[in-house]
């Protein structure tokens, strides 16, 4: 089970000196000041922690909410 807090913690580890708590849950990564490499780090960390396989094309996982919805649908 991935929680919102898990995703925010992963963002904080991926991006030093970045306030992960301030990212709106529905904001696109880019609008929140995060780039594709930050997203890759977050998804890799969540994969390693939970075993969930995120899709090769992660363009639909645009926000914290999208990641949580995907994880829930995947049964974690």
């Amino acid at each position, binding site marked *: 089970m991935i929680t919102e807090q898990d995703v925010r913690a992963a963002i904080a580890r991926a991006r030093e000196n970045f306030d992960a708590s301030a990212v709106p849950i529905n904001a696109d990564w*880019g609008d929140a*000041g995060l*780039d*594709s*490499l930050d*997203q*890759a*780090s977050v*998804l*890799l960390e969540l*994969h390693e922690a939970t075993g969930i396989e995120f899709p*090769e*094309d*992660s363009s639909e996982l645009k926000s914290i909410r999208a990641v949580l919805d995907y994880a829930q649908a995947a049964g974690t």
Partner: protein
Amino acid sequence: MEPDAFGIAAIGGYLPERRLNNAEAAKQFGFADDFLATKIGTAASARKESEEESSDLCVKAFEDLRCIAAQDLENLDLIAVVTQNPDCHGLPHTSAIVHQKLGLAKKCFAFDISLGCSGFVAGLAIVKGYLYATGGRHAILFTADPYSKVQDPEDRNTALIFGDGAAAALITKTPNWGIGPAFDFGTEGQKSPALRVDANGRLAMNGRMVFDFCALNVPGSVERTLAANGITKAEVEGWVLHPGSKYIVDTIHDRLKIPRIPFPAPYGNTVSSSIPLILREMNPQKQRTVVISGFGVGLGWATTVLRSTA
């Protein structure tokens, strides 16, 4: 464990003088102001002239090698060229064209090695094996893989990453750096589409797949290589992990729990030339034990250690 008898005697290199300033392109792609500095590491990419062929880059690296090598380069048994962007669509092989341009002797065999970022490290093993099998004594391992031949300047995934360059490493039994002896190799062929040239002849990359592959596999490869060669991390005086981008190098250093280093390739990721071009700037008497690891296209990796013989 002692390194193998064959090793690297000298390395020549060539980087085109022309540079592409990436700042403007980064802005057009909508990247944050600090993206180049903190994630890519390449402010200005080295670019060959359009008429320069891969074999020309090899010849220029050879000329540099000739200036610094302590021995005659005429008596070669083998030249091998690591490239996936050959002259003439690969037929004849680029190494044969280099052989012709350098006017080498008939007894010097020539072949190409089709590998990307792992190619230099893998090439060391291949060249050593050839010399052992044939009783040869001297070889040059060239690397020249100018991605500007296939790069799409409008592709935000790849346009800021790669640079053109070439290297020529002289392999002999009187080296400055001994090789290995142990290597660590691996391939995840099912992930090969993540870095490819597409049907339109353009480079295409799934950055997240490549990132995951590197972050998940390279630290383990380094650890296995160190153990197999009987070396501890504390003994390593140089870490040359293929500079695909600053972010991936930083990530692998973090996962290995070793200090980060300044990005060593500000002229861009020169694919199989990246490792020898960095080694060329190092002093085997000061950085006596060096880990080298190449990873990317394939997706595959190749890792070994170099140890000073001085």
